C-alpha cells in the first residue's frame, strides 16, 4: 500500500491558502468599469438626483426610466419619493421637486406613448456582467440616442404640473403616532447616549421624512426620519447628554416619550459606559 504524501498535500494546501489570501485580501481584483448598481447608497442618491434633474431639463421619461433601471431599485418610484422627502428635510427643495416630478410621471404611466430608450439595450447587455470580473469596456455598444431636442421645449409644462407623490407612505393628520416600544440599549458598539427612533405606519412600514421633536430643560431640537437610509427609511437618531432628561414627540397628538435619560450600562468586565434608548412609534390601525 502506498503511503499518502502528507507533506506534499500540506504544501499544496498551504500554497492554496497563500494564493487565496493574496488574491482576496492583499491584492483583490481592482475594480474599474463598474455599474451604477454597485455604487454606495449616497452616490446612488447623487445619481438618482442627476436623473431627476435631467428629466426636468428634457422631459424625456423613457431615458429617465432607463437610467433609473441602472440603479436596480426594487421600486424606483418609492426610491424617488423617499429621497425627495429626505431632500425636503434637508432644505433641498428644488431637487426634491425634480424627484417628485419624475416619480409622478412614472406613476402616472405616461410611458405608454414614449419610445423605449436606447439605454435600455445597454442595461440589458450590461446586466449580464459581474462588476467584480472586470468586464471589458463595451465600446461596441454606443449610445444611440435618437430623441429630438424639441422635447426640451416642453419642459415648463412638465415642471409646472408637478403633482405630489401619492405612493410614499406618509403620516396623515388624524392618525397620531403611538409609542409602541421603548427599550434601553447597552451596546458598546454604539455611540454613547444614542437615542434611536423608529417610525412605522400602521402596516409596520418605515416612514421617511417624519419630524421628531425632542425637548429638554435647556432647549429643543427637530430632526427627521430617513436621513440615514442605510439604517432604514423610518430611522432617526440623536445624541443624548448624560444627566439630561429628554422628551420625544412626533407631532401634535402623538404619544410623548418623556423622562428619557441616557442609562448607565456595564460591560461584562465591570466597566461602566453610557448606553442608549430605542423608541418605536407606530400609527394605529
Amino acid at each position: 500500500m502506498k503511503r499518502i504524501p502528507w507533506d506534499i498535500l500540506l504544501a499544496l494546501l498551504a500554497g492554496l491558502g497563500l494564493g487565496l489570501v493574496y488574491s482576496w485580501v492583499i491584492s483583490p481584483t481592482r475594480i474599474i468599469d463598474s455599474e451604477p448598481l454597485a455604487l454606495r447608497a449616497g452616490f446612488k442618491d447623487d445619481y438618482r438626483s442627476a436623473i431627476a434633474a435631467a428629466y426636468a431639463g428634457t422631459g424625456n421619461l423613457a431615458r429617465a426610466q432607463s437610467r433609473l433601471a441602472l440603479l436596480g431599485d426594487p421600486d424606483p418610484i418609492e426610491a424617488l419619493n423617499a429621497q425627495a422627502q429626505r431632500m425636503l428635510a434637508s432644505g433641498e427643495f428644488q431637487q426634491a421637486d425634480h424627484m417628485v416630478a419624475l416619480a409622478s410621471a412614472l406613476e402616472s404611466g405616461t410611458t405608454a406613448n414614449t419610445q423605449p430608450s436606447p439605454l435600455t439595450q445597454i442595461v440589458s447587455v450590461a446586466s449580464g456582467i459581474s462588476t467584480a470580473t472586470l468586464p471589458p469596456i463595451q465600446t461596441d455598444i454606443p449610445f444611440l440616442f435618437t430623441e429630438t431636442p424639441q422635447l426640451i421645449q416642453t419642459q415648463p409644462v412638465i415642471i409646472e404640473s408637478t403633482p405630489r407623490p401619492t405612493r410614499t407612505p406618509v403620516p396623515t393628520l388624524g392618525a397620531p403616532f403611538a409609542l409602541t416600544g421603548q427599550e434601553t440599549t447597552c451596546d458598546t458598539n454604539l455611540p454613547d447616549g444614542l437615542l434611536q427612533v423608529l417610525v412605522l405606519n400602521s402596516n409596520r412600514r418605515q416612514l421617511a421624512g417624519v419630524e421628531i421633536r425632542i425637548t429638554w430643560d435647556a432647549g429643543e431640537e427637530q430632526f427627521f426620519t430617513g436621513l440615514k437610509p442605510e439604517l432604514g427609511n423610518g430611522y432617526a437618531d440623536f445624541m443624548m447628554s448624560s444627566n439630561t432628561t429628554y422628551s420625544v414627540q412626533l407631532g401634535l397628538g402623538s404619544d410623548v416619550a418623556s423622562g428619557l435619560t441616557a442609562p448607565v450600562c456595564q460591560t461584562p468586565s465591570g466597566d461602566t459606559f453610557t448606553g442608549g434608548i430605542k423608541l418605536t412609534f407606530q400609527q394605529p390601525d
Partner: protein
Amino acid sequence: MKSNRLILIMTALIAGIAVGLTYGWVIDPVDFFDLTPDTLRADYKADYVLMVAEAFRFNPDPGLAARQLAIFGSQSPSAIAASGLEYARTNGFDDSDIALMQELVTALQAWSGLP
C-alpha cells in the same frame, strides 16, 4: 532522494499558490459593493455628464453642475465634462446630446477660468 522530496513539496506549494490566485482573481473574485463613481464604466460616466448637461440646459448654474460632477473626485469639473464629451464624440452619441455636453464644457471652463 531528500532533495527530490523538497522539489516535490516546493512544486506543490507553487501549484497551490497558482490555483489559489486563479480562484481568487478569476473564478470567484471579491464582490465589490459600495463603490465610488470614479469606478464607473466610461459609458456610464459619459451618460452622467450628459445628465448634468441636460439639467444645465434647464438650470444654467455652473456651480451646481460642478458640484454634480464633483462626485467623480480628483479631476476638475470641466475636465470631467470634457472627458464625457470626448467619449460621446467617439461613440456615436446623438448630435443634440453632444451639443448639450459641449455647452456644459464651455460653461464650466469659463466658470472655472480654465482653458
